[in-house]
């Protein structure tokens, strides 16, 4: 299956989304990422029982932090899909890219580039 998805997305692989912590998402924002999404397995299907549920909570925590910082919480998102859902992967990639494009570039990234 050869599926097209936007080239601006950089995929970082982790063994389980349960490995993704608040600090990883914050570091990405700090480094100027315009948006980040965590793509976990379907809820109920985690090989480690609850990794994806923990990831969702951490994404929620980062959303809160972004709001406190005066940034759009939509810049970070959690998605759930299975490894067999290739087309859905591409669809999410397009969806998220579209959403971030509408928000515009992150002010952190802009400042980082200007500096």
């Amino acid at each position: 299956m050869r599926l097209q998805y936007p080239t601006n997305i950089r995929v970082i692989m982790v063994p389980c989304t349960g490995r993704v912590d608040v600090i990883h998402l914050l570091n990405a924002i700090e480094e100027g990422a315009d948006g980040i999404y965590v793509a976990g397995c379907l809820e109920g299907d985690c090989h480690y029982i609850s990794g994806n549920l923990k990831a969702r909570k951490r994404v929620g925590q980062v959303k809160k932090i972004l709001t406190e910082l005066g940034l759009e919480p939509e810049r970070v998102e959690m998605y759930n899909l299975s490894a067999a859902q290739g087309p859905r992967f591409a669809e999410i990639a397009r969806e998220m890219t579209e959403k971030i494009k509408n928000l515009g570039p992150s002010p952190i990234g802009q400042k980082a580039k200007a500096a």
Partner: protein
Amino acid sequence: MVVAERKPLNELLEMVQPYKKILVAGCKGCVTVCNAGGKKEVEILASELRIARKKEGQEPDVKEITLERQCDPEYMDQLTEVIKDRDAVLSIACSVGPQYIAGRFDDKVVFPGLNTTFIGGSLEHGVFAEFCQACGACGIHNFGGLCPIARCSKSLLNGPCGGSSKGKCEISKEVDCVWQLIYDRLNRLGQMDRLTRVIPCKDWTTSRDGGPRKTIREDLKL
């Protein structure tokens, strides 16, 4: 453990606003256990400060350190190097920590990053509750091993009050009436007769009423 919680970010940003070079200092003791001021929380707070400063178009200069403990003079030494070029320190130990830093480093401005809330324990992951008020003369054996000073809203020694209802305290349906728990426990222990004894007024001089407290252990002094 001492339980504490992070102050809201806006409050902290306002505190350190005039200062350029910041040090975020955590503690590996109690506040690591209650997820408020350990290495992980230091990383998160430092990152938040950096993002906030970048957003304002400033070049952030935030250093991070997590001490073994911030309530022992010898561990203060771990700060000596890193604190040198800093304008301000944001300590996320319990409120003992920033006081130790203030005592040791005369020329440094120190801010408390946490609100120290109580002496307690965890009920489940992420939920902490108060269990002791450090009254200085523990008497929980009179109450089935449960503390009415810390856990009864009125600190009644001869409870319950008339507000106890279905095991809950009148202040909130979320709060257990400790006097119900005391009754239940004494019942299970076969010690209900204890409840016929009137517990006299407590001598509070061992508590804060006696002024700031100190413990001296001659056997341990060097």
